[in-house]
């Protein structure tokens, strides 16, 4: 048949395109790429990641080559009669059972080793961080340092950090791709993620387990700092908000009270702003983003958010008691941006 080589061409084309595209894909600039590694945990998994990737690619190439050869070589050329009726060959069957089995063993041994190595308990002196997944933002609490923040977690480079991952509502998954993968935040359980970051810089992550309306908008930032910078950050975060940001007569704190914000948000130093449902806002202006990593932290974003949280983040649990007037929006924006 004239068109019999078509599958060959299709298959070959698919393989070639895939490999080229793979190269391009790896080199593209995606900040959440799983191929950038910046921790000992990521290094630890890298060996297995690459070993298994190359074994599976090699098996794929062999199977595709065989398939292409067979499809081309044995196409019907209009010969007479029927081909030899071969029913099987036990030796071949044993061979192609044992070879995949050997490959499986080759992949399973480093896999199991890595599983146990990665599950080792956190070393002494690790910075403990409790990550709480909530619809649809992350709370980070440093129990030993007395710091609580949201959506932007700071860690020191070169020092082990031990995340305790929990959930306040539904299942989420803490995914920091460059630090060794993800762990779920399961209601009623505590999961652990321990690693030591290498390079300083700003990194992005995202909730990986579908958790409802705004799952796509549940992002987070991880800031890796030099130890000294990290300690300075801790001191700043521990401090309560300054006096004129908590004094009840001032327009900012007043709007914060009248807008109903105090019901859910905490501004430490202000005893009536003690809500624990939403993010702690004591130092909200020090963070790079608002709305859990989806808006730059500036006046325009703040206004947008305050006018219509649900419009920015579908299903948002931030229910305003009344629609804020433009005056209130402006006062609150100015106030929040002062909470450095």
């Amino acid at each position, binding site marked *: 048949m004239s068109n019999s080589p078509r599958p060959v061409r299709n298959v070959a084309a698919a393989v070639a395109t895939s490999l080229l595209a793979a190269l391009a894909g790896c080199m593209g600039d*995606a900040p959440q790429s799983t191929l950038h590694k910046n921790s000992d945990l990521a290094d630890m998994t890298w060996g297995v990641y690459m070993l*298994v990737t190359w074994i599976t690619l090699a098996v794929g190439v062999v199977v595709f080559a065989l398939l292409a050869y067979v499809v081309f070589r044995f196409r*019907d050329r209009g010969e007479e009669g029927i081909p030899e009726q071969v029913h*099987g060959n036990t030796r071949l069957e044993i061979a192609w059972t044992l070879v995949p089995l050997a490959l499986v063993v080759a992949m399973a041994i480093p896999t199991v080793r890595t599983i146990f190595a990665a599950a080792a308990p956190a070393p002494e002196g690790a910075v403990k961080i409790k990550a709480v997944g909530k619809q649809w933002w992350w709370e980070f609490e440093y129990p030993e340092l007395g710091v609580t923040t949201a959506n932007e977690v700071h860690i020191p480079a070169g020092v082990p950090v031990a995340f305790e991952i929990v959930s306040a509502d*539904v299942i989420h998954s803490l995914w920091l791709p460059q630090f060794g993968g993800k762990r779920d935040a399961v209601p009623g359980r505590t999961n652990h993620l321990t690693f030591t970051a290498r390079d300083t810089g700003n990194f992005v992550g995202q909730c990986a387990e579908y958790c409802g309306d*705004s799952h796509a908008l549940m992002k987070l930032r991880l800031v890796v700092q030099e130890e000294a910078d990290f300690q300075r950050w801790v001191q700043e975060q521990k401090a309560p908000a300054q006096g004129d940001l908590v004094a009840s007569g001032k327009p900012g704190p007043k709007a914060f009270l009248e807008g109903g914000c105090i019901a859910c948000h905490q501004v430490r130093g202000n005893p009536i702003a003690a809500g624990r449902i939403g993010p702690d806002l004591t130092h909200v202006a020090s963070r790079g983003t608002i709305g859990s990593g989806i808006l730059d932290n500036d006046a325009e974003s703040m206004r947008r958010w305050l006018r219509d949280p649900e419009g920015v983040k579908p*299903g948002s649990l931030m229910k305003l008691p009344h629609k804020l007037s433009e005056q209130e929006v402006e006062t609150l924006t100015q106030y929040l941006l002062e909470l450095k």
Partner: protein
Amino acid sequence: MSATPLTAHPAHAPPAAAPSGIWDWITTVDHKKIGLMYGVTAYGFFLLGGIEALVIRAQLVKPQSELVSAQFFNALFTMHATTMVFLAVMPLSAAFFNYIVPLQIGARDVAFPRLNAFSYWLFLLGGLLINLSFLLGFPPDGGWFAYASLSERMYSHSPAMDYWVVGLLVLGTASLAAGVNFIVTILNMRAPGMTMMRMPVFVWMTLVVQFLVVLSFPIITVGLIELLLDRTVGTNFFLPLHGGDPLLWQHLFWLFGHPEVYILILPAMGMVSEVLPTFSRKPLFGAPFVVFSGILIGFLGFGVWSHHMFTAGLGPVADAAFSATTMLIGVPTGVKIFNWIATMWGGRLRFTTAMLFSVGFIALFTIGGLSGIMHASPPIDLHQQDSYFVVAHIHYVLFGGAIMGLFSGIYYWFPKVTGRLLDEGLGKVHFTLQFVALNIAFFPMHFLGVDGMPRRVFTYDEADGWHLWNLVSTVGAWMIPIGLLVFMYNVWWSARRGPRAGDDPWDGASLEWAISSPPPVHNFDAIPNVPSDRPLWDQKYGDATLGLDRRDPHIHLPPNSYRPLIAAAGVTTVFGAFLIRGHDIYRHLLDAPGSTIQSIPFSSLFLATVATGVIVLLYGLYTWFFEPVE
């Protein structure tokens, strides 16, 4: 060429009082008609699920797209997966079980023809019920895996997930009934001489699938009923607040969910194992190995469920064990692939459309199988889990695998069903378009996953760097319907004007090619003797005789019955009543947020509907049991 097989011509005129037209379809218990109804209905749902996918891809074509709302997008991916798994691939496979298995084992029908009709009606009603949610504005949006606690009333107030739970309970009942039916059919109704090892591999794979169904659906049924009770009467199976555990749901779901993967793929593997030998003009290489690897896959399929939970924190021992069992499944799967290639080796390959789809199946399924091996390793899975890499994987397995295999089966058996050949030219256009389009649609998803794109996100940012591959993927996805349009035109045209197929257009080896196309209502004038694993081939090219050249003096076929439909309507009403309860609770929660489910009284409409359903069901079953069959 030796003797042409004897065609069976209707030995008896149909009974005088046989119903006709639409009433015949409603009351039929003929496995062939039921098979056709399964096929047409499932294809309709396949198109619906496809449209949902196209909207998903349209939304993701660019960053920050606002084509659909977040909530609707979440409903779309929930319903796309639910539809494709339960309403498209499973019942499309069921269409082939129904039509082909009795023909391949030399039987006149399935063991329980009315139970078979009951299964079909439950499938149809369950599918309609779950999609009714769109019309009422509450499409399920908790994911096709419905993880608690998100799927609990506390986090999903609306009745949306009630539709999902209730729909799946109805569909599960249909699958269980069908599973029992086909196990009994295959074990008990084989023609004389057809030992287990002489059964066609498609029949074998069907048998394995039915065992998987019968063993795995009770598990999800337990989970579904627990979730339904949590949502409608206020029990507490999955909420940790009062001692429940959301991971219990995950265990129940994936104990079903992983065997389900093999429920979806093994039928296609069976079809490919029929098509490749026929168009290679050779027997299936190592047929016993193919059969036993299918059985082994079925067994191992029950021991790997926790690989869906590597990120859930089950601990290193469980992770290591489930990783090992998962990788092991690669071995029997590899054995199958090598046997298929060896079947073609030394053959005389005729690249009909059916053959192209089978070869395409091997290629695409290999890609999906290998990426599956990758996330069998937990350290890798911690990167890939819930990323687009997994989306690529399941689409290579389910579209590249199951759907390509099913199309191979359609092109292969269409002439048997209709008596006419599909147009080969159009078929090859369809194959090429589909093969190219699905690779463009799904291959880039590997890169998106490696680049850190999570699945089930309704939007992404320019800065994420995912727009190029999303654009490519969307273009590919929108090309898929072009091939399907060619296919549908081909079916529409060929069913009426295609060239006559004759009994045995492909020079086949199994029993269905020994009878007329389409088969007579009673399938076989005489029950054949089966001398070998390739009875018809051996009659044509050897000295075997099937003994079809006689006519049984008395052929008994069961009469039509509408009772299965009544019973199915009863089951659906009982489960459907819980939708009323769901709506009641939702209204109550809107008025009085924070009230407990226990405090909301059962409405009389709910109670009356349950009672009505029970009465209808009992009436249906009672009259069914005492219906005269002569």
